[in-house]
């Protein structure tokens, strides 16, 4: 065994040496042909801990605000300040890390967190071992990529929330921002952890904050139910993650990435040499467990049902947690432990199918919904499926790039929907809103929505979403094992373009019309805008039965954030578009998520990554094909939902519905997945609970009651003896005496 290990080590060094030589010769080769970047570990600068510490500080300060019953916007101010600080520290950390040789992973040791020393019999020899999980940060380029958009978006969304949540100043405002900062802290722990146990802490932390924020309106039963649903479904996934971490410790003897990656190196070497039998079976099980956790957190089949319901939370929460950051934690987990997934023959194909099917299913549901925030939620589920499929078709760069671009445009879409919801008293039904983008004061929202929709629909060349999606599609068709996945994703791309622009064409352009929702946020708005009852005073005011309602156009904070994000969505285009992945490729390629042409499932199936798409290079062909598919989707939405539409409630699409028969209704009812889960999981559990309830009530309680009633009954039967009458006692005494006399006589005679 020992010699074998040395051999594989030697082999690995030889291989990496050769690969480095090749890449030196070829310079920066295009595509994924560049050689592996060796991972080197070094101690990092201590100021990196501030990235984690500042959001925690914000959380504590907001908690103090809540204790002091602060009735101003102070907690929002503190949160924005601390998160902006955290972003700047991340930026400084990134710039300093960028100066290091590619592949450097910094380990910033915070403090010793968990250390268990014990002895164990290994081959009948007692060895002392220790379980170490430090509060330490692992900073490589993947960490930097993730933390830059997490802290950056968190800052912007906190600023947005300072205005959006202003109805709750003095009530839930402190609580909201405390949970918000705690979320950023947990997310930072998750992403920056240098071991899987600290990742797990962050993982549970973001789950908790998600629960707290979905259930923010805790007096609303649907919000409470949604919070519980999210929490419970995540627990199911987390069980898989916990098992994966345990298996990691059992197999690698450590939960620290540094040790795991070092011990993976021999396996990677045998993978590079095409010797799959050198990789032990137990190591192949680890990714199977980890991905269950990833599917739960990132809302994939079969655990995706919580995410659409999570829209019960305030919109900034939906934007940050349930679109941009937390739900990408699953993608991050797989990217972080990518070597383990590459080693497994079955893990990545499963991820690919789960991701692709989720993408398609969620897109079909999204097409049939009427609640615009819910459409965005299904779109998030669908796009997360894309990211997983991206990782699985062996473009970790594409997967990460799609996370990166999606974070920007999806946050922007949610925030624009949130502005509409905020302005129209909770109205989210696309049949009751029309032409919002052209109403006075709503221009920024309309433009932001357009930019977001173009990105999500993958409008060619000018949008970042197009480039990241194209990377995944191209790679799927280039991968000989993933042709079917490619077709599913391509179909999904068309559907995505359609449902995205269905929202845009119905709500943001067209004839001006609105019906306000039924949420009344206090009186302040009415007073702000005055009660103009004069007819024709307000152009948008046509059919509303609620006289005196005026749309509440967004203020400076919301507009600033939306404008910033709209600009950012274009600024990031070169970061993902240049040179097949651009900056993101450099970041991912120098991290643990790098991919070097070798994956176990590809070797096992003798597949290759250069499959032609009808005789053309798959990547180049896909740029054209996905553009056309996206444009067709947009065009269909234009014809059905914009052309000739005169009212908000109806469109040409209504005429087409009967042609689809019951399918449209099924899609509108979310394919009855919730009902299905209800029938196969919830109902049996409830029935079992009823059985146990009656068992408890009859048997257990009966037993307890029996022991309680026995002395009571016994006492009751003896009670008449205590009559209180002197003669009864006297007779008793005399009787006793007589009995004793008889006994004495009988005994003595």
């Amino acid at each position, binding site marked *: 065994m020992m010699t074998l290990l040395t051999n594989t080590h030697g082999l690995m060094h030889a291989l990496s040496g050769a690969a480095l030589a090749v890449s030196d010769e070829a310079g920066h080769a295009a595509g994924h042909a560049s050689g592996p970047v060796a991972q080197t570990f070094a101690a990092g600068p201590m100021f990196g801990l501030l990235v984690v510490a500042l959001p925690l500080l914000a959380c504590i300060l907001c908690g103090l605000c809540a204790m002091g019953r602060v009735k101003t916007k102070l907690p929002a101010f503190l949160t924005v300040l601390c998160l902006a600080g955290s972003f700047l520290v991340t930026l400084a950390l990134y710039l300093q890390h960028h100066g290091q040789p590619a592949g450097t992973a910094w380990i910033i040791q915070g403090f010793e967190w968990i250390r268990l020393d014990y002895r164990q019999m290994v081959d009948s020899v007692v060895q002392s071992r220790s379980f170490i999980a430090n509060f330490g940060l692992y900073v490589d380029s993947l960490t930097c990529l993730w933390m830059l958009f997490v802290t950056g978006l968190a800052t912007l969304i906190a600023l947005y929330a300072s205005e959006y949540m202003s109805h709750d100043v003095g009530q839930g405002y402190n609580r909201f921002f405390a949970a918000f900062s705690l979320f950023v802290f947990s997310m930072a722990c998750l992403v920056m952890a240098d071991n899987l146990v600290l990742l797990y802490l962050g993982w549970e932390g973001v789950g908790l904050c998600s629960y707290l924020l979905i259930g923010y309106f805790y007096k609303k039963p649907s919000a409470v139910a949604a919070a519980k649903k999210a929490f419970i479904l995540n627990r199911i996934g987390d069980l898989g993650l916990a098992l994966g971490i345990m298996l990691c410790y059992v197999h690698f003897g450590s939960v620290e990435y540094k040790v795991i990656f070092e011990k993976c190196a021999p396996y990677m070497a045998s993978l590079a040499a095409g010797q799959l039998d050198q990789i032990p079976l137990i190591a192949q099980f680890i990714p199977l467990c980890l991905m269950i956790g990833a599917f739960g957190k990132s809302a994939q089949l079969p655990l995706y049902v919580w995410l659409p319901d999570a829209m019960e939370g305030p919109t900034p929460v939906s934007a940050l947690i349930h679109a941009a950051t937390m739900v990408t934690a699953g993608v991050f987990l797989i990217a972080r432990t990518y070597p383990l997934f590459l080693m497994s023959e079955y893990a990545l194909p499963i991820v690919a199918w789960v991701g692709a099917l989720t993408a398609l299913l969620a897109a079909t549901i999204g097409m049939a919904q009427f609640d615009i925030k819910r459409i965005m939620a299904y779109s998030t589920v669908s796009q997360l499926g894309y990211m997983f499929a991206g990782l699985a078709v062996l473009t970790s760069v594409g997967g990460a790039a799609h996370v990166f671009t999606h974070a920007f445009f999806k946050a922007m879409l949610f925030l624009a929907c949130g502005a509409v919801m905020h302005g129209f008293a909770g109205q989210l039904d696309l049949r009751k809103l029309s032409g919002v983008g052209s109403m006075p004061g709503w221009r920024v929202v309309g433009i932001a929505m357009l930019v977001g929709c173009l990105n999500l629909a993958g409008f060619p060349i000018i949008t970042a979403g197009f480039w990241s999606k194209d990377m995944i599609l191209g790679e799927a068709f280039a991968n000989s094992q993933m042709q079917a996945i490619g077709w599913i994703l391509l179909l999904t791309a068309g559907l995505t373009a359609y449902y995205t622009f269905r929202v845009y064409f119905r709500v943001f352009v067209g004839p001006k019309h609105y019906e306000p929702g039924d949420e009344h946020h206090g009186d302040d708005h009415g007073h702000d805008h005055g009660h103009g009852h004069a007819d024709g005073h307000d152009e948008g005011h046509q059919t509303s039965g609620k006289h005196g309602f005026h749309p509440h156009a967004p203020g400076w904070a919301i507009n600033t954030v939306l404008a910033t994000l709209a600009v950012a969505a274009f600024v990031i285009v070169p970061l993902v578009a240049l040179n097949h992945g651009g900056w993101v490729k450099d970041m991912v390629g120098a991290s643990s998520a790098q991919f070097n042409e070798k994956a176990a499932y590809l070797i096992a199936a003798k597949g290759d990554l250069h499959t032609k798409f009808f005789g053309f290079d798959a990547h180049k062909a896909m740029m054209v094909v996905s553009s056309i598919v996206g444009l067709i989707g947009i065009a269909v939405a234009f014809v059905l939902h914009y052309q000739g539409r005169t009212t908000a409630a109806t469109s040409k699409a209504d005429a087409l519905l009967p042609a689809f028969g019951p399918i449209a209704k099924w899609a509108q009812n979310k394919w009855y997945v919730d009902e299905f889960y209800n029938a196969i999981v919830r109902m049996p559990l409830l029935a079992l609970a009823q059985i146990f309830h009656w068992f408890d009530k009859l048997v257990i309680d009966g037993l307890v009651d029996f022991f309680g009633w026995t002395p009571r009954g016994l006492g009751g039967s003896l*009670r008449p*003896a*205590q*009559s*209180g*009458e*002197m*003669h009864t006692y*006297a*007779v008793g005494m*005399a009787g006793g005496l007589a009995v004793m006399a008889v006994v004495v*006589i009988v005994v*003595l005679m």
Partner: protein
Amino acid sequence: MAIGDMMMMGSGLMGSVLAQAAPPAAMSDVHLAHYLFVACVMFVIGLIGFLTRRNLIIMFLCTDLMFQAAGVALIAFSRYHLNHTGETFTIVLITVAAAEAAMALALVVLLFRKKESLDAEEWTELKG
């Protein structure tokens, strides 16, 4: 004289327990069994009276009668064994009985004041 025989046997047993095997000296016709029979009769009369009568004062007198029966039995044994233990004890007993009579009569007076009746059946406050 079954009772007398029984008493003799009882005393014999008692004697052996006390290890005091003093034989009766100069016994007249009247011996221990007769005294004990009288004590028994007194006790039974007192007991029957206590059980049958309802007047508190009569009932109290009956208890005293039973008490004195015990005294007679003690004196008889004392004489039988030729020591003064029983007599001494009886003197103490009479003293206690006198004090008790004073207290019991006082209680009876108080009870009478409460309900204007001497009927023992009136008092059932200790009912469980």
